[in-house]
């Protein structure tokens, strides 16, 4: 039991390392290995979550070297929940990729499976680690596998991947500079040790500059407003099967990293903490408005969803910027909710593309006849994006708004409302297309309307996302209770 934190990360890692070897037996063998590993991780992360809720946070020391000598994994309820989320979406996405496979070349299929497995490993590691440099290495694993998955998405995917590679590496470099400055003034790389030293004799100017670098780095990785340039085309042109994972979860993990830095390492007592809150508040507000406005103008659903991700990241960061426990809960709830919403929307988009071969909004006329379940998910996820109860989007917005009202920042409430309405404009455009508009010539010509809606591999993720959006919404109080345990302890 005490090895759970490391085993969660190791399983997909080992699966990735051995996937190519096992793929030599049969091209599907590697796939089952990875699927089994991710599922195993899912089970263990749930066990870990239960353990953490029951007994409090868990430290895992690599090589049994105590902090700050060795590397440490630190799991509290917040990141235990995120671990579960990553494993769940990871397993679903992995299941979902099969129908998209175009080759049976053992090596290539094996390598592609390795990529997804390592992407999951990287995200799990970033979430669980308690060491700032270890976070960097996991960040790079995540990024490299993401570059690859994006580059597999056709001609524009390569360019998108290259641009993301440049921007992502710059971000990682800036992150290292931030870490370097902090290391320079503390002499340690362990997060909790660093927090202790900084609170005692932190050089405030150095901390300020380090935080600027960190905000830029994490902001780029999570595609916050001024740093989002790489994101729309990367999300749009990523490989179809892995898109839900990339767009649904990948952006959230750097956000969690930023949370760690702000609330765990720097702490709310830090002199310039208010400054960060205001800066993040401005960035998030800009993200929400800019993302929504750009999303309205798109004709390709993938791009629309990508821009909407910029806006939705704004919600999460807004929660961090408000900084009361309730708002932080809202931010995390939105993180989980949005993973399922955006993941679900991309699952649905992929399913439509699989069946009709199109992602252009103009071709979506009345596809609900052929794919009622997919369109059901589209509707529920869209409503959740807008924030209509009883979906999870409403409740995360509720906590954010209550938090904002609690600190008297009514402007944030106004922005939340405005952003919801902007979301409503383009999501109802989508719903209008799917249910009302006449069939386009392109979909009319396809005989695809016959037969089952989508393969079972695709149906499971769709149904799971559908249920998750509703259940997370209805039982949000439970999750908030769990989150509160950690947030009260860690942050404030």
């Amino acid at each position, binding site marked *: 039991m005490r090895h759970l934190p490391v085993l969660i990360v190791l399983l997909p890692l080992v699966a990735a390392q051995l996937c190519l070897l096992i793929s030599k037996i049969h091209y599907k063998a590697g796939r089952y290995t990875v699927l089994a590993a991710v599922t195993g991780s899912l089970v263990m992360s749930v066990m870990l979550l239960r353990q953490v809720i029951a007994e409090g946070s868990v430290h895992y020391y690599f090589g049994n070297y105590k902090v700050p000598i060795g590397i440490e994994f630190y799991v509290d309820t917040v990141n235990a929940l995120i671990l579960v989320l990553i494993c769940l979406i990871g397993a679903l996405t992995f299941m979902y990729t099969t129908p998209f496979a175009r080759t049976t070349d053992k090596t290539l299929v094996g390598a592609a499976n390795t990529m997804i497995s390592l992407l999951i490993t990287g995200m799990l590691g970033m979430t669980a680690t308690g060491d700032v440099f270890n976070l960097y*290495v996991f960040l790079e694993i995540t990024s490299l596998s993401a*570059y690859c998955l994006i*580059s597999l998405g056709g001609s524009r995917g390569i360019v998108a991947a*290259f641009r993301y*590679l*440049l921007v992502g*590496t*710059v971000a990682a*470099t800036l992150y290292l500079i931030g870490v370097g400055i902090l*290391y320079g003034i503390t002499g340690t790389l362990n997060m909790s040790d660093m927090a202790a030293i900084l609170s005692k004799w932190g050089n405030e100017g150095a901390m300020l500059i380090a935080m600027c670098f960190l905000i830029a780095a994490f902001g780029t990785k999570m595609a916050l407003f001024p740093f989002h340039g790489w994101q729309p085309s990367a999300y749009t042109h990523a490989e179809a099967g892995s898109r839900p994972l990339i767009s649904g979860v990948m952006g959230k993990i750097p956000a969690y990293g930023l949370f760690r830095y702000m609330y765990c390492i720097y702490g709310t007592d830090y002199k310039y903490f208010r400054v960060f809150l205001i800066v993040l508040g401005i960035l998030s507000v800009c993200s929400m408005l800019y993302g929504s406005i750009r999303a309205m103008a798109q004709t390709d659903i993938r791009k629309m969803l990508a821009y909407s991700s910029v806006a939705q990241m704004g919600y999460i960061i807004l929660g961090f910027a408000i900084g009361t426990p309730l708002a932080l809960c809202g931010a995390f709830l939105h993180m989980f909710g949005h993973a399922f919403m955006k993941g679900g929307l991309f699952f649905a988009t992929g399913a439509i593309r699989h069946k009709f071969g199109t992602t252009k909004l103009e071709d979506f006329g009345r596809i609900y006849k052929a794919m009622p379940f997919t369109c059901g998910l589209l509707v529920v996820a869209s409503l959740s994006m807008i924030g209509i109860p009883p979906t999870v989007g409403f409740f995360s917005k509720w906590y954010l708004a209550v938090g904002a009202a609690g600190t008297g920042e009514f402007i944030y409430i106004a922005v939340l409302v405005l952003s919801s309405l902007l979301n409503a404009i383009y999501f109802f455009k989508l719903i209008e297309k799917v249910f009302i508009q006449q069939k386009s010539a392109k979909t009319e010509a396809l005989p695809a309307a016959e037969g089952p809606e989508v393969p079972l591999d695709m149906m499971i993720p769709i149904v799971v996302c559908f249920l998750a959006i509703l259940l997370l919404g209805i039982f949000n109080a439970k999750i908030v209770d769990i989150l509160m345990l950690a947030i009260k302890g860690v942050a404030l």
Partner: protein
Amino acid sequence: MMTTINAFLAYKGIYFLTFLLLALGLSGIIVCKNYMKKLICMNVMQVAVIFFFLCLGQKDGGTIPVAVEGLSAAADYINPLPHGLMLTAIVVSLGTTGVGLALLLRIKEKYGSIEEDKIIKREKKF
């Protein structure tokens, strides 16, 4: 005056150069239109970071961190940790550069150019 300058050059000068290198790399990524040059500038940035970390690990009067008979105090060896970290960073930057080059190869193949404006123009055809 001279002592100030001397002290500055001795204790902070390299930071100045490192950050200059970093800034130049960053500006190169922004300004250059050629993807290959962008990639090179990216490498320049990474090198700057490596320098930066190594500066932090420098110690007056320290030798390389391989134990020698008779020297056992911490002050006798330079800090091994930044070197260890930077080994990792170098490998990572190697990986990133390799992937970047492979992508560039594909871009060149598909678009016939690695100039940004040409690629943007041709991207619309897909």
